[in-house]
Structures are given as C-alpha cells and as structure tokens.
C-alpha cells in the first residue's frame, strides 16, 4: 500500500489536508498525493506539499459525480489512507467511495495519528458526549472537518508529478437551479468573538440585547438550533453545534443557552467560554470558563454598559 491521499472539491480544504497528509507521509515514508477535479489548481497543491497530483478529467461540474472515479483510482493505486474534506459534498462522495471500496469510513475525524503501524482516528459520538477511537483497516478512509488543520506555508519552488486521468462520471442526476445562499452576516465559523443566543431569549425583539452586547465586544451573533430552525430568527448558517457550525472564537459568550451536548460539540475549540443562564444546573456551566447564574434580561444590559 502506498501513499497518503487527500481530496476535496474545495482546494483550500485540500491544502489544509495536505498538512495532515505531510505529517503522516513523513512518519510512514510515503508520498503524499492530492486528487482534484480542477486541473488549474494542481500546481498550487504541489506548492502546498503534494508530491503527486491526480487530476480527474470528466465532463461533469458536479463534484459528487466523481465518487466512482475516486474509488476506481484508489482501488488501482491502493493508498494507505484517503482523507476527504468533510464538507457536505465531501461526505456524500466519501460514503460512495467507501461503499465501492467495501471499506470503513470515519466521518468527521478531529484527530488523526500514526500509531503501532496503523492510522488511528478520533471522532465524536452521541452528539459529542463520547470520543470513539478507531484503527483504520485496508484503504483507510476518513473525512476531516474544514479548519481542523491549517493551510501549509506555500513553497512555489516545490516540484511534483501531475497525472491526468480521464474518467467517466455518473450521469443519472440532473442538477439545475443552483442558488448561492447569501450570508446575512459574517461567517461565524471564522469569527474572533461570538455572542450566542438560545431559547432563554424570549422574543425576537430581544435579539437587540445580543446585538448591543455584540457591538461593544466587536462580536458576531450565533445561536442554537432551536433559534434558527424552529423560530427562524436567524439564518441556519448561524446556528452552532454538531449539525451546525463548529466555531473557534477567542471568546464565546452565551445567553439563555442550556448547553445540550449537540450544541457544546460545536463550541469546544473556543478559547474562553462564558455563559449566562438562570438555571444553575444548566449543562452549559460545566462547559464554561466563566458563568453567571442570572436573568439575561438583567445581566446583559449591565454587562454591555460595563464593557462600553
């Protein structure tokens, strides 16, 4: 078995995965290869650490339709592992590749290492309550969430091999009407500071409390799933958690968020977590660095004033 492979339909994420690929390739004395559907990005992938780039050339603009091609190439070349960017498209493709290769697939691995001659991964289970450690077998497949690794420093003098592969793509699906989702605010996944609201905020008008606090902090506003999906007070892109966005701010401050495990799974990488909640037994306090047990309608205006 040879090579550590990375794939993403998003070249920036593929570059992040090259950081992991490079680490494992060094430890296992193998090549690191990138698989891409964008010929124009091949050189960039080499500059970011790929020794070899496979360019899949097919006549579909729909990334999901390259699953068969990725699987065929992997079964021919037998890499030790294939790391796929865990975008939604990436997860769709990865599952199809795993099915074709008749192999396991770890979804959303947040940590990957080489141990005792095999690749080992960690992922969350039960909404973030537990961590499952798995040893990959055969061609090891895992999807890795965006921003788990940094993009490597580019070295434009690096050289590598570019291999073009003509592939047949799945044609059973007709994709029409692609509509970008227009973000109403900043991307909370990359925000430096976040104010998060939960169902403790009783009415939509009271979002103003959060907005005022966010303004003095220079923060963006996120929310729990209930606020986005049940109340539709904020767009779906603004909810944080297991099935929402994973965030990594230096400061996360929640008001009226109970801290159910699925929400907490999305805030764990925050540097400092602050919670305001009336219920002293709310699980959010166990996940917080600082907490105020109190009514957000009293606390937040005072806090906003104090921070001015």
């Amino acid at each position, binding site marked *: 078995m040879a090579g550590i492979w990375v794939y993403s339909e998003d070249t920036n994420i593929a570059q992040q995965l090259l950081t992991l690929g490079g680490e494992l390739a060094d430890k296992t004395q193998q090549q690191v290869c990138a698989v891409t559907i964008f010929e124009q990005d091949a050189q960039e992938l080499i500059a970011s650490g790929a020794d070899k780039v496979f360019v899949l050339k097919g006549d579909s603009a729909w990334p999901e339709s390259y699953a068969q091609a990725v699987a065929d190439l992997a079964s021919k070349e037998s890499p030790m592992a294939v790391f796929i960017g865990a975008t939604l498209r990436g997860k*769709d493709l990865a599952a199809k590749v795993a099915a074709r290769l008749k192999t396991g697939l770890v979804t959303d691995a947040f940590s990957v290492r080489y141990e005792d001659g095999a690749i080992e991964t960690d992922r*969350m289970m039960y909404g973030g309550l537990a961590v499952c450690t798995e040893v990959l077998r055969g061609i090891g497949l895992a999807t890795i969430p965006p921003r788990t690794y940094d993009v490597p420093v580019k070295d434009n003098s690096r050289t590598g091999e570019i291999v073009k592969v003509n592939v047949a793509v799945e044609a059973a699906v007709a994709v029409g009407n692609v509509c970008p989702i227009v973000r109403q605010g900043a991307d909370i996944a990359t925000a430096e500071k976040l104010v998060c609201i939960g169902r403790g905020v009783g009415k939509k008008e009271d979002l103003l409390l959060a907005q005022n606090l966010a303004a003095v902090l220079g923060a963006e506003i996120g929310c729990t799933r209930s606020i986005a999906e049940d109340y539709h007070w904020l767009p779906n892109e603004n909810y944080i958690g297991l099935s929402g966005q994973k965030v990594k701010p230096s400061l996360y401050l929640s008001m009226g968020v109970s801290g159910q495990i699925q929400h907490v799974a999305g805030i764990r990488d925050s540097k400092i977590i602050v919670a305001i909640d009336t219920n002293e037994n709310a699980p959010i306090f166990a996940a*917080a*660095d600082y907490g105020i047990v109190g009514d957000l309608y009293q606390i937040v205006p005072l*806090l906003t004033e104090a921070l001015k």
Partner: protein
Amino acid sequence: MPNIVVCYKWVLDEQDIKINPANLALDTSRAKYKISEYDRNAIEEAVLQAEKSGASVVCLTFGTSTAKQSLKDALSRGPEKAYWINDAAAEKADAFVTSNVLVAALRKVGDYDIIICGEGSADTYGQQVGPRVATLLDIPVITFVTEMKIEGNKVIATRKIGDCTEVVTVQIPVVITVLPEVNKPRIPSLKQVLGAAKKPVTEWKIADLGLNMEDTEPKNNVKSIKGFVMSRKNVIYKEGTPAEKVTSLVANLTKEGAL
C-alpha cells in the same frame, strides 16, 4: 404509484448516558432508546409523500432485540408495514455492515422506488448509510434534502449543501436523505398508536438475507469509546447582585485579555 421504503435506526438516547468520571467509561444502564431524530423526519417525509401521491410506505430497521419496541412507534407514524432485521450483530455494526444488511433486505422486500433515510443517526452521526445503500443498489442518491416532490417517475429535490442550494432531478429508483428542516414530525395520536399494533411486521435474521460473513463484520477496529472531558475553569458566579456578578466577570475577562 411509487413504493417508498423508509429506513430508521433505534438508538440510545444520549441524554440518559452517564460518564463515569474515574475511567471515562460510558454507563448506558439507565438509557432508554428512541427513534433517531432525523429518521423521524424521514418517516414523516415518506408518509407526507404517500399522502400526496398515493404511494405505499413501509419502514425498515436493522436492530438488536431492543428494536422490538421501536416497531409500534414507527408504525404509529404512518407506514403500513414494518420490516425488522432482528440481529445481535446490529450492536457492533458500522455503516459498512448496516448498509450491506439494509441492501440485502431491500432486495428481499423487492418493490422499492424511493428509499428515504435520515441524514445521519443521533448516535454515531456517520452520514453514510444513505449514499452507501444507493451505491450498493447502483442507483442515484440525493443527500441533504430540504424539499422533495414526486412527479411521475421522477423525484425533484432541493438539497442544501453548505453555501448553496441545488435542485436535483433523478429518475426513480432513488435514495433520498433528509435534513431536519424538511418537515416537522407528527406526534402520533392515540388512535394511530392503537392502530399501529395491528399493522404487520416481518422479522428476519441476518442469516435469512444470504450475506457473506465478511459483509457482516465491521471494517475499522474500534479501540475505545470514552467520555469526552472538557477541562474548563468553571468559575461560576451564583451569589451577589447582578451588578457584582458582572463586575467580577469583567475583571476576569480583562485579566485574561479576552476583551
């Protein structure tokens, strides 16, 4: 009139799982089971589609003997019939095994035009079974669906895929995986719950499905499952006036350089 098969998983309710702080082992002894949340959306969608198009809906689950309790719950949500692969292998099954078993069962069920799955299960949230099943059946899959419509022998679905939405059209047979936004699952009425007891259930073992040994052995080796520990400062202000609490918090955040 298409035949719809909806797949669901009977999972431990994570809210009842406790972690032993000494060794981080999971204590599931007091945990109840539930139909995985997203699968409730899947069942609801299958039933809504059937109500619109006159399709028939059956449900399919692969679970251990504990999944017996799930059948009434699932059937009270609308499907006409349940198929249950009752096998202890479900306990350790990964997505590789689960999809092999579901596919073998789907082939045995025979008439399937639209297979609906939840986007991921509440326990492992692997988000794999739908696309794996489609691949093994050699039919297309539309994942992350927020809206769907059956038109003749076509399914037109809107999927939400990160930074855009896509409208995708495919010929049946097809697998659809749904996001929670697709609908609001009904709360079954007493009449539906009582009616569910009379609906037929077909029970199979894996041995009835003609699978090879290696199709039923999980692929990756699970080394451990341990409680996740978060080490946080846990400085919680409970006593004092709101103003005092705020002053203490601001002082600490300033000290941390967080502001």
